[in-house]
């Protein structure tokens, strides 16, 4: 970069849509594409068909060239978007159909089928492309831009078509999120409740295909699948409710489209598609680490805390069950049955001490009143769980959580009262 200041100025201008007609058009196109891909891609990923979109993308190449050839017959003088898109869509659908047929054979697995179709269709496209480029006299320069995409050369009509279709696809997907969601989650169940799974699948994959095909001129067939996968992967880190994931993925896709297009137009020589993918990738990485609960930092921390709590609970229980005060050596012997090292025991006791559950005086560890009452609560919890496992053995495994603070946090008050009665009356567990 020769001039950083200029770059930031340029970037800001493009970002805020002040940099002129062309740049604004491009941003409009890529943002709406990102939005639609994020939403539709969520369904594709949930339905485990995301990589089929890769096959679709690569399979469009022979159709694109074929469309071009046919348009030549009808008097075109160069690559025009409509016949290319239609041809691409046809061969793309043919590819998907081929994958479905191949999968039915017992010796062909789905991943192999996708790879087979992807590469052979693409190979056919390459062959046709080379024939066209060497034999046909008319202008063919626009054709191979379908491989890497060329967002900056989109015309007004192109962009408006792209934006319109994208918004439409996004809205349809949101409206149909219930049937789509059901089929993604449990197709068999959905079928039993009366949904026609085949039709819903067809519609879903059809929307995916439409987004792919319209996205190809902008970002190229190699990367169009990235638009479907990366925003959704990021979105799923933020929520588990389908509607939230859809909206977040769409938002991330849109933001990536906006930022990425702005970035690539301010920097010389950078193609739009890959830059948008990188922006989406950066958002994904940030989400991976920072998302609350599902993010790495958050979940590792809570697993660590949970294991610590389990250890503390075990320790307090030991105290209550045996003596209320134990010497340090006695402690090590007491806890050795759990396989804890001396260092771990040491750290554990310090933590308990910090929480005022135990105290250390005249070389003996003993429970404080707070510690004693906590220990008794833990004991009660465990007895209640044990009783619950007996009385509701067939469903208990789903609910029992030995590490929870109070059984009442999981089971209802009535149920707990019932269990307590049973404990009093019944034989000791």
């Amino acid at each position, binding site marked *: 970069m020769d001039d950083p200041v200029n770059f930031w100025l340029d970037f800001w201008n493009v970002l805020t849509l002040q940099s002129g007609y062309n740049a604004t058009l491009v941003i409009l196109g890529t943002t709406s594409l990102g939005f639609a891909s994020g939403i539709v891609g969520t369904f594709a*990923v949930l339905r*485990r068909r*995301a*990589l089929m979109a*890769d096959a679709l993308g*690569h399979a469009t190449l022979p159709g694109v060239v074929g469309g071009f050839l046919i348009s030549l017959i009808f008097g075109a003088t160069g690559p025009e978007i409509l016949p290319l898109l239609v041809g691409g869509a046809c061969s793309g659908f043919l590819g998907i159909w081929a994958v479905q047929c*191949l999968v039915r*054979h*017992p*010796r*062909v*697995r789905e*991943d*192999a089928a*996708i*790879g*087979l179709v*992807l*590469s*052979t269709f*693409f*190979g*056919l*496209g*390459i*062959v046709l*492309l*080379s*024939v066209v480029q*060497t*034999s046909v006299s008319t202008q063919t320069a626009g054709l*191979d831009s379908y*491989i*890497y995409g060329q967002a900056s050369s989109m015309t007004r009509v192109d962009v408006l078509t792209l934006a319109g279709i994208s918004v439409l696809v996004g809205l349809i997907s949101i409206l149909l999120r219930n049937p789509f969601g059901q089929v993604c989650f449990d197709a068999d169940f959905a079928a039993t409740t009366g949904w026609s799974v085949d039709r819903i699948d067809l519609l879903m994959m059809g929307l995916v295909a439409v987004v792919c095909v319209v996205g190809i001129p902008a970002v190229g067939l*190699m*990367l169009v*699948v*990235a638009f479907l*996968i*990366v925003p*959704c*992967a990021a979105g*799923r*880190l933020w929520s588990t409710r389908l509607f939230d994931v859809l909206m977040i993925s769409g938002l991330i896709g849109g933001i990536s489209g906006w930022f990425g297009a702005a970035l690539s137009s301010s920097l010389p*020589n*950078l*193609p739009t*598609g*890959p*830059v948008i*993918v*990188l922006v989406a*990738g950066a958002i*994904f990485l940030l989400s*991976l680490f920072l998302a609350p609960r*599902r993010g*790495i930092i958050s*979940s*590792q921390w809570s697993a660590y805390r949970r294991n610590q709590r389990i250890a503390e609970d075990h320790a307090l229980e030991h105290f209550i069950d045996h003596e209320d005060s134990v010497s340090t050596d006695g402690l090590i012997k007491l806890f050795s049955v759990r396989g804890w090292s001396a260092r771990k025991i040491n750290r554990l006791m310090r933590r308990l001490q910090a929480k005022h559950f135990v105290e250390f005086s005249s070389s003996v560890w003993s429970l404080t009143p707070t510690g004693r009452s906590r220990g008794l609560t833990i004991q009660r919890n465990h007895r209640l769980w044990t009783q619950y496992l007996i009385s509701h053995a067939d469903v208990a495994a789903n609910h029992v959580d030995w590490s929870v603070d109070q059984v009442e946090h999981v089971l209802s008050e009535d149920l707990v009262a019932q269990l307590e009665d049973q404990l009093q009356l019944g034989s000791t567990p």
Partner: protein
Amino acid sequence: MSLIPALDLFPLFASVLVLVGCTLLGNFLILRRQSLMGDALSHTVLPGVVGAYLVFGSRDPFGLFLGALIAGLLTVASIEALRRYGRIESNTAMGVVFSIAFAVGVILIRVGHTDHVDLDPNCVLYGQLELMVWFDAPASFFDIDSTNFFYAVPSSIWSLLIMVLLVAIFVVVFFKELRLVSFDPGLAHTLGFSSGVVNILLMLLVSVATVASFEAVGSVLVIAALLVPASTARLFTDRLKSQILVSVLVAFGCAVLGYLLSTWIPLLWQGESLKASGTITVFSGFVFAVSLFFSPRHGYWTQRIRARQLADQVAVEDVVVLLHTSHETSTSFPWSTIDPRVLGLATQQGLIQSTTPGQYLLSDVGRSVALEVQGRRNRWLVYLVNEVGLAPDHAPGTAEHLEHFGDDLLQKPSDTFGKRSSPPGDFL
């Protein structure tokens, strides 16, 4: 020898090396359901290759291999990290990693293209076998002088040779471990064989094969080289060793014929030769499709024919038995309801003879066949009622369906587990 001009020697050789080397690895990728890892790796080595090119400044094979190894390791590590710590499903993780890596690669190429003119983005996609053509080749094979030859061999062929050698050694030495780890990773773990190590080695070799093949056939077509010949071989055999062997043969054939087709076909319209990498891929796909239909064991066509033959056999036996019983009970025979084709078949097999048109008589052979079928039916009846415990009134219907299937099911001499015949219920 004018079929294969000497100037095509190198591209031909390169194609064979690419396909053979990749297919050896592809067999295991397919069995381990990691075909898409091949797809992913062929995308993610791109930044590795371009980075190595930019760093080392030339197409130094050492630099390329290094780039490949690093890219391969990073790919496997990041996919595994995403799966384990991000709790992301493996296909999604693959998609994320290879998209990002490929985007990086494309950007590197575009940026590098301005300074290094021979780094052509499209070459990455479909390679440049054509550039290996030996323009100074002598007119005939017999004139090839060995020193000239060695000078003329392009460096990429040496890389490919090394790659194929490495892959072959790996597959032979690790054959038993590869098979175990691919079939039953749980058992491998308890036996003390680390499936992680074998997996990493496999992925590294795939990266190396991808990079070595890049120059010849480009990234996307490497996927075809990995998957198509091996998938074809899967349709022909049931044993791992023969599958590998068949896949190598198929790879060899596809490479040679595919390349030659790319030079011959354009002769039809006197154009320039077709993109060789694409032609080889399409030809391999064609071979696969043909095998899908006509393979002697698993092809669609052969299966349909076999099903048809079985149905015919059943129909013929039914007719014969019916004729036999109607003779015994002297009821009139419903000739009109029988498919004349079945009657024709029965006559061909010598089971019935036509005396007057439209009427048939059982021959001696036919009579003995009828008796045999009836005997089988009775044995099935006994078995079903006594051993399986079917109600006596349900048994005859089932026995009628089963009578066409041989006694070898009823008395399996090979299966004497517990000193009694194994219930053929297992086969039903």
